[in-house]
């Protein structure tokens, strides 16, 4: 008997066992470390402080929270405002999405514009202008009082917050619901018609259930955003909500006051709760992947009466949506605007003031947000690649942690970063790391990372792996393939991610308010907020706001153009 000769296989190298090269392992570790240091530790710190008393673990602070009338009220107010904003935003967005995707309507371009216009202006910028237009003594109510002898309390207390937030955030529902409706295969509807359904039955039994996932996703996003917004209630003088309470506790009582942390924890729970509830509602309902074809529903004619009603509705919404923009512009060129339908006179003095005083604000914003965008694109691009193209253990976990930043309120992240890095002193200057300007960049980068990550993931998913394999087959190494094939093909997606990060960071205020220590370090959004605080500063604040809107609008337009161009290129490749 002779045994077959055997050749001992070499033991698999570490790289083979991990399914990745050493460089990829290092990259994943670096991203994980970044998230650990600037997302997980700060948030854990906030949670730990909230549960720590003089003798270790305690629930006393939470007891105090619910025992305090003001905080209980703030809690319910925040929930109420979140829910009511979703309701009001739905009243605007659902009809628009329906008109857009189900009917032939000549003003469709107008609706598309409606979907973007509010997003280029942060709600707090418009809040003061909204007060002047819809407030108790604002333009609309003065006219109503004059003509009909009554007022409508659009802006009284919580109403104001709801009104401003709904006008600002309804596009999230509009965009998600429209996308959902557009994804329904027209055969889904036609088969129902073929079996005898039409009109309301068709809508309620087939179309609406199929579009529900998009609606719920949009509604959850609106709820979370509203819950997180600190500046709008502050500027409208509404302090009996959770975010303003947390901010006031930390800034007035001090960084050691546990109540700010308790409120933070409750905000995280509500934010996660909102998302979890949405997830639960959608369990097993992700229909998009189960439908072939797509192609959208057949659009039908509205008829003359329907067209007229739709046109009136769209124009009305357009006026509403544009009113903060118009208001802020009028305010920026107004001499005095108070107790009057329109400003008393017009001037360019506010812009002169801004150009004298505000240059550092603008350059700071460009620097901070540019850096944050760059960090996001690099981290997001790397992470997307590692997740989709390697089998590294833990890559999914890192991705999930990065994505979870969406649900972390900016205020809470700001508090966490402040608490964690206040005692870490910079060398030479001895300044706390927490208030060093670069911490703002990090806060922006962490919070916007999900956008860049999604953009990079989407771009990479469209890139078939065979394109890389073809390069490798022709002798290109991993790095060459990355440089010559992958990066050039996803650069459009990365650029879109950069611009989104930049534009949203430029108007972020929740974390900014906490982390800015010195005026020379302040970015644009902070400047607007400070100016808007005083009656005399409103004019210059509005002028700054107009500049911010223009910056964000240009950036958004560029991102849109890049995305469109990419789509055009992709389409040509397929032909």
């Amino acid at each position, binding site marked *: 008997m002779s045994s077959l000769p055997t050749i001992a296989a070499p033991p698999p190298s570490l790289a083979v066992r991990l399914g990745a090269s050493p460089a990829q392992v290092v990259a994943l570790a670096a991203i994980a470390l970044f998230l650990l240091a600037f997302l997980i530790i700060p948030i854990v710190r906030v949670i730990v402080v909230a549960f720590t008393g003089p003798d270790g673990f305690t629930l006393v602070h939470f007891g105090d929270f619910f025992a305090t009338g003001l905080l209980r009220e703030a809690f319910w107010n925040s929930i109420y405002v979140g829910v009511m904003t979703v309701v009001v935003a739905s009243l605007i967005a659902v009809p628009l999405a329906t008109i857009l995707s189900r009917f032939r309507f000549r003003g469709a371009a107008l609706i598309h514009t409606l979907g973007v216009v509010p997003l280029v202006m942060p709600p707090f910028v418009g809040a003061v202008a909204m007060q002047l237009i819809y407030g108790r003594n604002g333009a609309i109510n003065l006219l109503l009082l004059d003509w009909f002898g009554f007022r409508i309390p659009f802006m009284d207390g919580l109403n104001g917050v709801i009104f401003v937030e709904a006008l600002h955030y309804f596009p999230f529902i509009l965009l998600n619901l429209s996308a959902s409706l557009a994804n329904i*295969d027209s*055969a*889904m509807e*036609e*088969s*129902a*018609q*073929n*079996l*005898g*359904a*039409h009109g309301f*039955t068709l809508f309620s*039994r*087939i179309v609406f*259930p*199929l579009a529900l996932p998009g609606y719920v996703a949009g509604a959850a996003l609106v709820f979370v955003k509203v819950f997180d917004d600190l500046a709008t209630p502050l500027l409208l003088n509404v302090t009996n909500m959770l975010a303003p309470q947390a901010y006031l506790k930390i800034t007035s009582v001090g960084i050691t006051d546990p109540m700010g942390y308790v409120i933070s924890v409750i905000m995280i729970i509500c934010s996660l709760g909102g998302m979890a509830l949405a997830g639960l509602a959608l369990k*097993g*309902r992700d*229909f998009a992947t*189960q*439908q*072939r*074809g797509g192609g959208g529903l*057949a659009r039908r004619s509205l008829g003359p009466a329907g067209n007229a009603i739709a046109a009136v509705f769209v124009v009305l919404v357009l006026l509403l949506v544009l009113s903060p923009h118009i208001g802020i512009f009028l305010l920026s060129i107004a001499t005095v605007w108070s107790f009057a339908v329109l400003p008393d006179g017009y001037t360019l003095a506010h812009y002169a003031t801004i150009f004298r005083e505000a240059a550092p604000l603008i350059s700071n914003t460009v620097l901070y947000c540019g850096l944050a965008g760059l960090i996001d694109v690099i981290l997001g691009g790397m992470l997307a690649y590692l997740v989709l193209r390697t089998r590294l253990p833990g890559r999914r976990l890192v991705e999930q942690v990065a994505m979870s930043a969406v649900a972390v309120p900016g205020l809470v992240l700001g508090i966490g970063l402040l608490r964690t890095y206040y005692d870490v002193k910079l060398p030479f200057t001895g300044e706390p790391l927490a208030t060093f300007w670069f911490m703002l960049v990090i806060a922006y980068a962490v919070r916007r990372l999900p956008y860049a990550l999604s953009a990079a993931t989407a771009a990479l998913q469209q890139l078939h792996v065979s394109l890389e394999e073809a390069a490798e087959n022709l002798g290109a190494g991993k790095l060459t393939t990355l440089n010559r094939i992958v990066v050039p093909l996803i650069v459009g997606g990365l650029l879109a991610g950069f611009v989104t990060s930049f534009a949203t960071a430029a108007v972020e205020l929740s974390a900014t308010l906490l982390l800015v220590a010195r005026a020379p370090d302040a970015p644009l959004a902070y400047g607007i907020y400070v100016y808007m605080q005083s009656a005399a500063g409103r004019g210059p604040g509005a002028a700054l706001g107009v500049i911010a809107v223009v910056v964000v609008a240009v950036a958004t337009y560029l991102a849109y153009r890049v995305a469109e161009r990419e789509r055009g290129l992709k389409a040509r490749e397929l032909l």
Partner: protein
Amino acid sequence: MARGVTIEHVSFGYGATPVLADITLDVARGEFFAFLGPSGSGKTTLLRLIAGFGTPSSGRIRIGERDITGLPPWSRNVGMVFQSYALWPHLTVAKNVAFGLERRRLARADVERKVKDALALVGLAAFADRRPAQLSGGQQQRVALARTLVIEPEVLLLDEPLSNLDAKLRVDMRAELRQLQRKLGITAIYVTHDQEEANAIADRIAVLDQGCIQQIGAPLELYDHPANRFVATFLGTANLIDGRIENGRFSAEGFALDGIAGAAGPACISIRPQDVAVGAAGTGVAATVTEREFLGGITRYRMRVGRQSLVVDVPHRRGSEPYAVGSQVGLVIDPRCVTVLR
């Protein structure tokens, strides 16, 4: 209750682009009819017009005696099986099947019984509570069929229903569909671009191209007596030769054939590859083998005759020696196998 379908002078277009031009045809009661054509021929559009998805710019469509041209889709009582099946992912299989019955306001007990029967008919009684996503492609296809049949439509419309199935399942489902249609005695119209599928399943076929009907007939009739070049080449392979007919003789450059009836003047003839007999050089018309492909049951040759190139199929038997490329052979063509095209 099955009924026939009458289409009279139907035209249709999207904007200025004509899609269908003056379509007229009759589908008899209980007939299995196929619309066959390449993509863009208008076959699916014509089927959708019968279902009510779109209104003809002119012409009438009748089901039995009833003119349905202007009726909305939900009032027509024609059942349609979609290419993508269009099963609603948010409803269970049973709910999908029950949908049409509920629209017809049947009593709950009747709905349940009919749903059960319909699912049993397609062999899916055990799957009533599943979601469509939990079924295989073939099972989804059956659910789509059950959902349509359960409303007892006057006409069953099938839009390339088998195109999403793999090859073997397609052949099985084809036979099953045919059996089901016979059993129920229903009128069926079937859209496909696959000539084999249409031949196997249909009593009669309408061949469409560029929005016009090219020919209507039974499968065998279309194959043996194609009306024009398009039908001759779309159904199977055909040698088309342009030439002239003069006194019962067809002649082209370097090629002539006697015994061809037809009006004198320019003409085009069609010869199927298997209708050409190959013999030793010296018999019939002299030809040279230029290419050879062994396809299993047959060997397909390309032969040069004068300046014409012909495709010739020779059945293969074990031991038979194929002709070498370059060798000289003689071809015999029976004039009865030649079709003179318009």
